[in-house]
């Protein structure tokens, strides 16, 4: 179990850490040790608790129980500023930077050096120039960050962290945002940092990266540590198996047989130069089709593009065999294509409106007719669907923002059912809602399929895809990498295709 065979003191130890959020146990009794001069890979599926653990180490969350030690000294880190002071730096997955800031400023932001109370610009530029020179970079320190590539900014972030004496570097999927050829130089940098004695926590889904870099590997699943050992003692297959777990439970999905009819949605060669390339997929009547992939694979973007929320550079869409152009959600809805967004709060609810008004928003023609709002009809229609979906709310006048996530989701489903769609694009329909509501949403999906509607569902929960879908497409790095039929279903297969960004179907 323990990799720290050497007598050296671990750089960072996390012991018995638990953290719960309302209704979710995010981390349970997690113990985690990082030795100086090593790269420690942290693996796990989406939602396994990796981010929560890193946020605790970085002081963004405080743990419910457990303690943290740096060089065997107990420490308390209450915010990222304290974390930095303790030598912990996080290079996050989504780089946050101010485009108008210069390179010199970015090195010192948060701790600008002052001289007689005035910011010492000369010192800043001198230091920044020295850092860049040491790294063999020759651009001006007055360049704005906005003019750099993501990989260059990432390099600067690492330089900054090291300059400010970071001993523990957390890298959250550092290769997800950079081009393939830049990965090698990043790895060289990481190896150099390791040689200098830094402790590096490396979060990644990509097994080849993990086994190329890591000295130790820890696997998290459902908020607990499944294994933690030297990389030499474990292989990629074992890690994937451990990430997934063995306890598959098909029985808990209310999947029923539905008559599969003609193709209702057909997409051919959809491309968007920034987001995805050459995506062809189809959904038939009565069919529930899954779209699997890792975060950032481009699944949501494809679905948003079909719904008219992203532009398409190329590709054709047919609904019921008719070629259509869906330039806006309005056009999509008119063609019977609707989308339930993964982001309920930003792209779903109108928080100031009642659940009734939220539900009828996409079908105003049904409730506002002949120049007047038919309040009674609106009430009847909304009630009917709220009953069918068993929305639990005090009244149809209740503001949607006061409901739980699961009930908000059901109201948004009601919005689309009232619009009587042919195809439903469901992006993470059960994310962030409790188990009971999840089951109800599965049942609704089953009913919709039986009514002959086509469903395309994105999910990051593999058991859910396996339990509900008649077919599963897998995406990686903006391309389709597999189309699987039920006899081919297994979490390992899906994950393997999802992590493969070179293979193309």
């Amino acid at each position, binding site marked *: 179990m323990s990799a720290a065979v050497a007598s050296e003191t671990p750089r960072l130890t996390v012991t018995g850490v638990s953290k719960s959020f309302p209704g979710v146990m995010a981390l349970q009794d997690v113990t985690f040790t990082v030795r100086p001069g090593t790269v420690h890979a942290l693996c796990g599926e989406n939602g396994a608790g990796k981010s929560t653990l890193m946020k605790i180490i970085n002081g963004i969350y405080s743990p419910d129980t457990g303690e943290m030690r740096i060089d065997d000294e107990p420490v308390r880190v209450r915010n990222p500023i304290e974390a930095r002071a303790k030598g912990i730096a996080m290079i996050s997955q989504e780089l946050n930077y101010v485009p108008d800031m210069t390179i010199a400023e970015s090195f010192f932001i948060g701790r600008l050096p002052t001289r007689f109370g005035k910011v010492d610009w000369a010192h800043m530029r001198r230091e920044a120039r020295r850092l860049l020179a040491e790294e063999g970079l020759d651009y001006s320190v007055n360049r704005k960050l906005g003019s750099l590539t993501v990989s260059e900014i990432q390099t600067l972030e690492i330089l900054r962290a090291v300059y400010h004496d970071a001993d523990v570097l957390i890298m959250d999927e550092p290769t997800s945002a950079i081009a393939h050829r830049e990965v090698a130089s990043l790895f060289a940098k990481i190896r150099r940092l390791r040689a200098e004695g830094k402790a590096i926590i490396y979060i990644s889904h990509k097994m080849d990266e993990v086994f190329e870099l890591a000295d130790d590997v820890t696997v998290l699943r459902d908020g607990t540590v499944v294994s933690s050992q030297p990389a030499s003692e474990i292989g990629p297959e074992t890690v994937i198996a451990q990430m997934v777990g063995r306890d598959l439970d098909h029985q808990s999905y209310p999947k029923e047989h539905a008559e599969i009819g003609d193709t209702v949605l057909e997409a051919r060669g959809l491309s968007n130069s920034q987001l995805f390339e050459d995506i062809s997929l189809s959904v038939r009547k009565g069919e529930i089709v899954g779209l699997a992939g890792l975060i950032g694979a481009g699944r949501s973007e494809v679905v948003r593009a079909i719904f008219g929320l992203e532009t398409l550079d190329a590709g054709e869409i047919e609904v019921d065999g008719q070629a259509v152009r869906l330039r806006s959600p309005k056009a999509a809805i*008119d063609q019977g294509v609707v989308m339930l967004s993964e982001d309920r709060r930003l792209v779903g609810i109108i928080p100031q*409106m009642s659940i009734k008004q939220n539900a009828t*928003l996409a079908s*105003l023609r049904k409730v506002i007719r002949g120049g007047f*709002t038919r309040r009674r009809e609106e009430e009847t229609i909304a009630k009917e669907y709220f009953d069918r979906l068993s929305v639990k709310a005090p009244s149809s006048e209740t503001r949607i923002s*006061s409901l739980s996530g699961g*009930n908000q989701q059901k109201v948004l489903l009601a919005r689309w059912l009232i619009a009587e769609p042919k195809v439903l694009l469901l992006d993470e329909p059960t994310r962030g809602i409790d188990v009971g509501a999840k089951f109800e949403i599965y049942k609704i999906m089953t009913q919709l399929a039986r009514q002959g509607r086509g469903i395309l569902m994105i999910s990051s929960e593999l058991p859910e895809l396996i339990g509900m879908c008649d077919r599963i497409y897998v995406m990686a790095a903006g391309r389709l990498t597999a189309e699987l039929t039920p006899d081919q279903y297994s979490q390992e297969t899906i994950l393997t295709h999802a992590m493969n960004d070179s293979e193309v179907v």
Partner: protein
Amino acid sequence: MLARLKALDTGRYSIFLILGAVVVVASFLSENFMTTNNVTNVLRQVAVITILAYGAMTLIIAGMIDLSAGAVMAFAGVVSVIVYKDTSSMLLAILAGIVVGVACNLVNAFLVATLRTPAFIVTLGMMMIARGAVLQLTQGQNVLQLGDFVVLGQGSLGPIPLPTLFLVIITVIVWYLMSQTRYGRSLYAVGGNEEAARAAGIAVERVKYQAFIVNGVLVGFAGVIFMARVNAGLPNAGVGYELQAITAPIIGGTSFSGGIGTTAGTLAGALIVGVLGNIMNLTGVGSYVQQIVMGVIIAVAVAYDVWSKRGKRKTVILKNDGEADGQPPASGEAPVPAGSGTASGRQGKGVSP
């Protein structure tokens, strides 16, 4: 104490209770207040600002703002007056005023909705353009001797001043648009959450154009009435009116962050401002002090709006901690999403810690 104040909130009727209280207090402060003459006078005076306020409300609910209302009103009013003097046609004159108002607002709409420039900046520019245009048109001179045109501002139908009659008709139209039409519902949705509205199939850009057009009609017509009431085409009229026009909806519960507000609340807000100004005049309060009082009222109204919303946010978190189910209903929501900005305080009822 603060918690009790929130619980005391009587929801969407509170603004009317405040209006009632102001009227009662005013009638005690001055015996001249409740005379037919004075009441008619107040109603005539508030007409222009209230019509502008409906335009401001429309845009604020949709998440936008119009700083050009005062200048465009002057431009529209002066053009209307000039057209009347040239053609002697009241109808053409009114139409001309409305056309100017709509044209200016179409430019605003193009920049805001199509080019996605912030409304604040766009309408600030339009404020200067319209003011410059009307001054250039008149060479800074007032247009005098309007003849029968003054009827529009000074005339009466029986005991009812014409501006008041116009205000009543416009109030009904605005209420209808806001609460009965797809346009109105879409407006609330866009102001409430633009991305969600778009994803629900609402043509967001079109709704924004419509809102600016409605505002243009209202601002243009307000200009006509204003010039008729003062019996002159004043190119310098309406300075600062754009901000006064914002005051009424804000006092009346329109949320500055969009998505919330009612026609009736705006009317009440405008009447409160009108009555307060009137009673201060009657009791001899100096105009400098009057400004201070108005300023305080705006600050208090907005602070209350923000504060009561903060209470609501806490409530939501609380509810999401457990299950929202089974909680007592937030007392009678308005059928319009509206309620009012201040209404959000109601959500705190019964569930605050």
